[in-house]
């Protein structure tokens, strides 16, 4: 019988505030150990936490972006446990009433969109770091990270397998950067995911016993870890065993998860409301203000691209992975519409798809930032393709020249003499030359070898330095082959 893999994801997103969630110390990454830990962060006797309003604002942004309910009143609690990098002996975190409740995120899968429900998002402080390198046999403690604001975003167990989990993580990763609440830097730990994985028989409505895989700091590791963990669980169950609820770590070296601690070892955190902090109260007015300042979200832009612009879902998905890129493309498209009002809409979308590929290639290959490509120039370039001034091949050349700083597309086309030859007389002349010089291919074509035709087209294009209008070349060539 087939197994179904069930995954829920918990993400810790470091919020993009200048100072810590409960102190004025800087949150910048990479400083010398313990140089960004103030009296509050190292928990000196007598110090008290003061909530950073910016952290709250960023949390509310996410809440609105995912359509969650913003708690008008939420509570900070203390999670008590001893660890050397937890200076107070407790972590301040939201427990019973989080700042954001519910909400959802749409992910794009090959078979279409799927909605992943969010349980909650709550504010909390990060711990410091224990440095287990050798300090004369001791462990070093770096409290620079202690007190960095985190938003923990928790999903329902809505993902079925590693691919969906990764699609969710990517969508969330894209969203938090889109709305400017997290830099998404996974190497520096700004965006960390834990995956709750369980398996069950297909058709079953009950959830299996889950294992939590901690600290997956890349999408690749997340996929590998879930795939491994699910097959491990299936193996255990199929050999008659039972899954122990436990926390597991993914060993990236060997690509396996291993047990870290079992449920029996789970600590009693003795949560209780932090008496040093008042309930967090957010007014309707504040929520409305923050909402009004939010940019249009990726899901909405994607929907617009598909419904109004008639882009394919895949194209819309790629374009909305990043807000700058989406806004850039949107500006380009609006220019293009103006320039090519009378063009066949399908041809326009195809040309836009070509532009998207070229932008992607330039960004990937040349490391060009999308802002360096001026949307209005790009629109002119694509308009020249659509009005048959240049071919796609020539467009690539013009695009490269644009990126090299040679100016506007029309200038480049003019200067380099790249204008497409649409004069049938001129094309006819080139075709005659090619036919005369390639008697063998002409013979082959006439004896039924269609391939020979393509070779002849290639020859004509080459002789015209790529400038001949391909459609016309086709037509004239066929006509002349038939005639002679």
């Amino acid at each position, binding site marked *: 019988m087939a197994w179904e893999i069930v995954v829920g994801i918990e993400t810790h997103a470091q919020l993009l505030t200048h100072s810590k969630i409960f102190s004025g110390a800087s949150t910048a990454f990479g400083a010398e150990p313990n140089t960004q830990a103030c*009296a509050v962060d*190292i*928990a*000196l*006797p*007598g*110090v*008290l*936490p*003061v*909530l950073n309003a910016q952290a709250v604002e960023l949390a509310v942004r996410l809440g609105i972006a995912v359509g969650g309910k913003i708690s008008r009143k939420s509570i900070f609690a*203390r999670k*008590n446990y*001893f660890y*050397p990098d937890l*200076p*107070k*002996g*407790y972590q301040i975190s939201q427990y019973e009433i989080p700042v954001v409740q519910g909400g959802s995120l749409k992910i794009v899968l090959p078979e279409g969109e799927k909605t992943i429900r969010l349980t909650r998002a709550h504010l909390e402080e990060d711990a410091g770091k224990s440095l287990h390198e050798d300090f004369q046999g001791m462990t070093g*403690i770096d409290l620079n990270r202690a007190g960095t604001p985190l938003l923990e975003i928790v999903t329902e167990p809505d993902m079925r397998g590693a691919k969906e989990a990764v699609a969710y993580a990517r969508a969330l990763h894209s969203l938090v950067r889109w709305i400017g609440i997290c830099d998404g830097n996974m190497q520096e730990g700004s965006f960390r995911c834990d995956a709750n994985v369980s398996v069950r028989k297909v058709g079953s409505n009950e959830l299996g016993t889950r294992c939590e895989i901690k600290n997956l700091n890349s999408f690749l590791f997340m996929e590998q870890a879930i795939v491994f963990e699910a097959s491990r669980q299936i193996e255990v169950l199929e050999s008659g065993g039972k899954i122990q609820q436990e926390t597991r770590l993914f060993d990236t070296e060997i690509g396996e998860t291993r047990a870290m601690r079992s449920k029996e070892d789970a600590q*009693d955190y*003795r*949560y*209780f409301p932090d*008496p*040093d*902090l*008042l309930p967090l109260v957010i007014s309707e007015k504040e929520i409305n203000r923050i909402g009004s300042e939010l940019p249009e979200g990726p899901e909405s832009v994607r929907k617009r691209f598909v419904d109004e612009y008639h882009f394919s879902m895949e194209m819309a998905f790629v374009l909305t992975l990043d807000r700058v890129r989406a806004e850039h493309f949107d500006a380009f498209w609006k220019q293009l519409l103006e320039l090519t009002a009378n063009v066949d809409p399908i041809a326009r979308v195809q040309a836009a798809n070509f532009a998207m590929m070229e932008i992607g290639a330039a960004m990937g290959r040349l490391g060009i930032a999308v802002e360096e490509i001026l949307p209005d120039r790009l629109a002119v370039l694509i308009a020249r393709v659509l009005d048959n001034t240049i071919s796609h091949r020539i467009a690539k050349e013009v695009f490269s020249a644009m990126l090299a700083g040679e100016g506007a597309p029309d200038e480049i086309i003019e200067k380099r003499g790249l204008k497409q030859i649409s004069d049938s007389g001129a094309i006819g002349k080139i075709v005659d030359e090619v036919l005369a010089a390639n008697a063998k291919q002409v013979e082959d074509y006439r004896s039924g070898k269609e391939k020979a035709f393509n070779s002849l087209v290639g020859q004509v294009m080459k002789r015209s330095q790529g400038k001949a209008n391909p459609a016309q070349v086709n037509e004239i060539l066929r006509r002349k082959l038939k005639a002679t």
Partner: protein
Amino acid sequence: MLNSTVTELSDALAARKISSVELTRLFLDRIKGLNGRLNAFITVDEERSLAQARVADERRSGGRAGRLTGIPVAHKDIFCTRGIRTTCGSKMLATFKSPYDAHVIERFNAAGAVLLGKTNMDEFAMGSSNETSHFGPVRNPWDLDRVPGGSSGGSAAAVAARMAPAATGTDTGGSIRQPAALSGVSGLKPTYGVVSRYGMIAFASSLDQGGPLAKSAADLALLMNAMAGFDARDSTSLERPAEDYTRSLNDSLQGLRIGLPKEYFADGVDADVLARVSEAVRWFEGHGAKTVAITLPNTGLAVPVYYVIAPAEASSNLSRFDGVRYGHRAKEYTDLNDMYRRTRAEGFGAEVKRRILIGTYVLSHGYYDAYYLQAQKVRRLIAKDFTEAFARCDLIMGPTSPSTAFALGAKTDDPVQMYLNDIFTIPAPLAGLPGLSIPCGFDAKGLPVGLQIMGNYFAEAKMLGAAHRYQQATDWHLRAPKEAQL
């Protein structure tokens, strides 16, 4: 001079009858002479105090002196002070030097007051007799075999024995008012949120509140003008306009409604205490006030509620004392957990451990609802009792403590008896209300009796006004222990 009130000393300084350096030296000498027996101070740094006094004198010469400029003030060793150690009465912090000043200390520094020394206290403010201090018990100046009350016992004894004209304290369940009563001085616990807790080492965050101890209500008002005020570093600090706490000192008592809760005049209170408190109430009646019989029906629940909430918060607040970053660390240990265990076993005394255990227990999974949550509910009922009472009266009066000072060691083996001693002082902090204790006479053994005056939120000035009227007509607050017995 030693017997003068802060108000009088301030006038003497202003009239250049004495300099701050002279005044400070006078009290430092007094401390030197008495502290060996009374043990009211944990740390005194004469040079530091005199240097501050010199600065105060210069400030006065420069014409920039305020009411407290040059006045020596002793601070409970729970307030963090830069440059002089802050122990909180514990071995855990026996050598701890804070790199920053508490808000209260900043305020006194800004006013130009002189830090006279750090006073002894129950360890982490947990105690009602000052016997849990790592630095040994404080003795009551009225009878050296008796306790001064706690936890601000050092501050109360220092004022009573004229080792300091005024002192700061903190009150969580009575730690200002009860030692004030037992040591025969005046002490005020303000409304929760009026005095910043920043730099005040936390015992139970939702209850802790700093306040002054001095000879008179008028002095308390002067000290409050320096101590109170909004501090953005304490999220529970209340942002409200600055008050002049002396503004109502001369208000008439005419028409003042004094509530007398029947639960505070019941069995279990010493006869002498009841007699002295009743005499004081009659004085108020004789001077224009009216008494109203009221009831605070949940008074009996205050002690159990307190001993759930305060230890719960304490168990978490004291987690930071783990030997990792500062404070005591065990010399030998095998691993991290062993380091924690030994450090905390060695660093904390028995009472602190008891409360950490109680607090850990009541917050534990499966017990939280029955203890902590239930206690919070009852806490609201206790606050409601007061809300209803203050609809019918302006101030509430009763005994501060059911008994006068008890003998050293008398209750150390019976924590519950010790806890019950705070029955009348615990309700006000549970409700966040202000409470004041002033001397109102002596029992048959010659031990001071305290009258407690409670008011509604922010009624400090009114409470101080009533107390001041009483102190103008009586001299209980000016009585000092006999020099011969010190």
